[in-house]
């Protein structure tokens, strides 16, 4: 596919980067990214990927936009209050860049639909809001060998890592067990600084673009931790766990299951 004059103009600041160029921009246009969640993280990730010209962006969310979301979920607005979040985000992303094919999926991701939903995509982005879904997404990505860019936020702190199955550790290597309900703040207790998902989502979008372009060093085997109050970024190593139940030497998880969902972030 060749770029029309309008697209050359739109992506000119990418194209003049030697690391991107016309060739890299074509890779971006041909890429298919599957995003879970159109909330705090999904909004900035999708916004920047749409701006960058990612050809196909699927976004799954079965929630509707509420006023309390607008403090941070920048793809939604007072005009889309009550609208499904995936639909609302689709409108925003397509208004920014009509080149992008945004597929809004108004469902909840689960063990029965996930493999089929993500199988035709190149990269998966986790912007979900609970542990069971995070483990499910990880397991599905390991099974299908899909790169996964995972981001999580709470209060003033965020975490990002890039999982490349077969090449590095997975989410279960990093966090073997989820915290039990009751030992983490409940959804009602937990707040989040509105701009925090912007920082973490932008980092996730950066990781996605690096994977598409095959440039730079992805956050593979590393967890990047951002502390907004201290204005600190730290990185810690994630060793691959040989005893990992999904990507280890003798995996015990061979099929996907839905664990009971509880509200713990």
């Amino acid at each position, binding site marked *: 596919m060749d770029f029309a004059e309008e697209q050359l103009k739109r992506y000119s600041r990418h194209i003049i980067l030697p690391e991107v160029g016309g060739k890299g921009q074509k890779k971006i246009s041909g890429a298919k990214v599957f995003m879970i*969640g159109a*909330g*705090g*993280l*999904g909004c900035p990730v999708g916004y920047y990927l749409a701006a960058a010209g990612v050809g196909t962006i699927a976004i799954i969310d079965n929630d509707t936009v509420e006023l309390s979301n607008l403090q*941070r*979920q920048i793809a939604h607005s007072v005009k889309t209050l009550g609208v499904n979040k995936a639909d609302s985000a689709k409108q925003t992303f397509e208004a920014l860049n009509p080149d992008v094919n945004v597929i809004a999926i108004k469902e909840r991701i689960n063990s029965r639909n996930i493999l089929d939903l993500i199988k035709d995509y190149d990269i998966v982005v*986790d*912007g*979900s*809001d*609970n*542990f069971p*879904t*995070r483990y499910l997404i990880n397991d599905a990505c390991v099974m299908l060998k899909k790169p996964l860019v995972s*981001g*999580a*936020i*709470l*209060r*003033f*702190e965020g*975490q990002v890592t890039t999982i490349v199955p077969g090449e590095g550790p997975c989410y279960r290597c*990093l*966090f*073997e*067990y*989820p*915290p*039990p309900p009751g*030992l*983490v*703040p409940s959804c009602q207790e*937990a707040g*989040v600084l509105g701009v925090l*998902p912007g920082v973490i989502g932008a980092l996730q979008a950066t990781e996605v673009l690096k994977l598409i372009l095959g440039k730079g060093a992805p956050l593979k085997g590393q*967890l990047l*931790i951002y*502390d907004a*109050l*201290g204005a600190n970024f*730290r*990185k*810690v*190593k*994630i*060793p691959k766990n040989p005893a990992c139940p999904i990507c280890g030497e003798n995996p015990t998880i061979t099929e996907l299951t839905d664990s009971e969902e509880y509200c*713990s*972030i």
Partner: protein
Amino acid sequence: MAVKIKIPTPLQRLTKGQEEVTSEPGTLIEIINSLDKQYPGLGERISESGKIRRFVNIYINEEDMRFLSAENTQVKDGDEVSIVPAIAGGF
């Protein structure tokens, strides 16, 4: 010089808002136990019966303690201990 311990935001309520506290060198579990005396409740959030809770990750400098000597890892002067709880918010 001492050991620096990075406290994640969810636990800073127990350290009077401090994001970093210090301790004398020792094994990791000795350090956690001594911190609990200074900041009651902290130890219990991180460990149970002398073991680090399975859902809490602790790094000594950049290394995951599970792949060092776990609770018995010797932490030296100048080392930095990071307590990193799993978080799942997408908000």
